[in-house]
């Protein structure tokens, strides 16, 4: 069931959970399909999908009602066209100074440090959506044993390249930033460079 609300006269949100408190992740493909469909139109300044919502920023608020009705009526017929996805290998140094939260996480998850590393590095992740920072991808596919709430007290500075987990997601910090995710390792892979033809490799 897709809900829709108007956040401001030119901002429309379609949401799978209608603002109810929840951390459950719904299939993001619905929203990626809506995104692909809306990208074909000139009506939008920006289109931002997340795991269970999509926010549409309209150029002209007079088009709001049209899109509200159109998407609610047709979204089930939209099909996500899976592009030829590229697989990126992310060389990661786990633990110690590179993953400052790994020891605490081991106690929290009741798993040994080695088990966490093995689990985290043996699955393929999908960039489900981008946000938070330029180049910050929300990666789905984290094994359930590693699902963990965000840190109670966010760090004031998470270093660039930090590999971190929170909830059902993993991510890499493309630049230094405050952050509430558990840092388990670090990579030298660059995620955001302006001279890339597309600013991001992912």
């Amino acid at each position: 069931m897709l809900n829709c609300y108007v956040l401001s006269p030119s901002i429309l949100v379609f949401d799978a959970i209608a603002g109810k408190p929840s951390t459950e992740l719904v299939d993001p493909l619905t929203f990626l399909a809506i995104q692909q469909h809306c990208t074909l139109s000139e009506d939008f300044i920006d289109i931002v999908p997340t795991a269970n919502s999509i926010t549409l920023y309209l150029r002209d608020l007079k088009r709001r009602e049209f899109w509200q009705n159109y998407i609610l009526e047709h979204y089930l017929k939209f099909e996500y066209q899976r592009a030829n996805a590229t697989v990126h290998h992310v060389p990661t140094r786990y633990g110690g100074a590179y993953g400052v939260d790994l020891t605490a996480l081991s106690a929290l998850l009741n798993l040994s440090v080695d088990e966490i590393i093995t689990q985290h590095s043996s699955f393929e992740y999908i960039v489900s959506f981008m946000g938070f920072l330029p180049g910050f991808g929300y990666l789905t596919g984290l094994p359930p044993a590693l699902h963990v709430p965000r840190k109670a007290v966010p760090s004031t500075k998470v270093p660039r390249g930090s590999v971190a987990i929170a909830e059902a997601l993993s991510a890499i910090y493309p630049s230094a930033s405050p952050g509430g995710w558990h840092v388990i390792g670090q990579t030298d892979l660059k995620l955001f460079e302006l001279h890339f033809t597309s600013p991001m490799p992912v």
Partner: protein
Amino acid sequence: MIEVINPGPLSTVQDLGRFGHRQQGIPQSGVLDPLALIIGNRLLGNEDDAAAIEITAGNAVFRFMEDCSFVLMGSSLNATLNDMPIHSGWCMQAKQGNVLRLKGSQHALRSYLCFAGGIDVPLVLNSRSTDIQGQFGGLSGKPLQSGTVISLFKPHQTQVSAQGALQPPYFNHIRVLPGPHLACFDEHWKLRFTEKPWSVQLSSNRMGTRLIRDDVEFFNHNIRIPSQAVHPGVIQLPPSGEAMVLLADCQTTGGYPIIGQVIEADLRHFTQLGASEPVYFEFVDINTATKAHETTLFHLNRINIAIENNKKK
């Protein structure tokens, strides 16, 4: 060219913002008060989105290395041109060697220094705005430094009329549309939220205005929501209950409950709200937001007509 003698606490090159890249996590950036920039640019015969300098708090000094028409918008921050006081909203002619000094004001926080022609910095992802966090755009992604020299584009008009325009006043009464997670709280909560003013915290910046109240414990919560798109004007409520109004440099997604959205016409007021200023909220409906937006457009149209009439003289 313009030489920065002293940038003050924070001066950055900004235009109307960087659009079309939110889905890649790239913030909007841009001036906190788009209306001020648009009016300033129109007075000078520039395009609406020509880049200007956003000056924070004052203690800033600039030297004109060439003759140049300029206008200060937002607050003048008690500015002087060669020690003569100048007002915001009026086109001025600076001569080569003139010094513009913005002292600062107890009642305002930001000024916009717009030049005829606009600031010549490269477009990065279709905008000249400085992304301070991402370190790109503007002048090599950095705030202005002492000694920085800024180049200007050639003005469209050889002679800029001696003209000015009224900016709509700044208020601290903010109209807000209900956000999706306001439903997590009851009617009493909503009343408490709006019955007393919030106070701006010193830690506020271009990413957001952080607010606090002496009864902030009442607004503590442990509601968790999945990340969704956020943008300037969104009012987030972190678990601490310290409400935060997101501004131009905010991130593109966020996982704190969204209790409201500041209407577009009122968001510019946060440009001038410094530490410990009181902020009053009022929940309104979508029609109020749309009408307020139309009032802004009407104001801009009247300025256009006046500028065109001045040209004919």
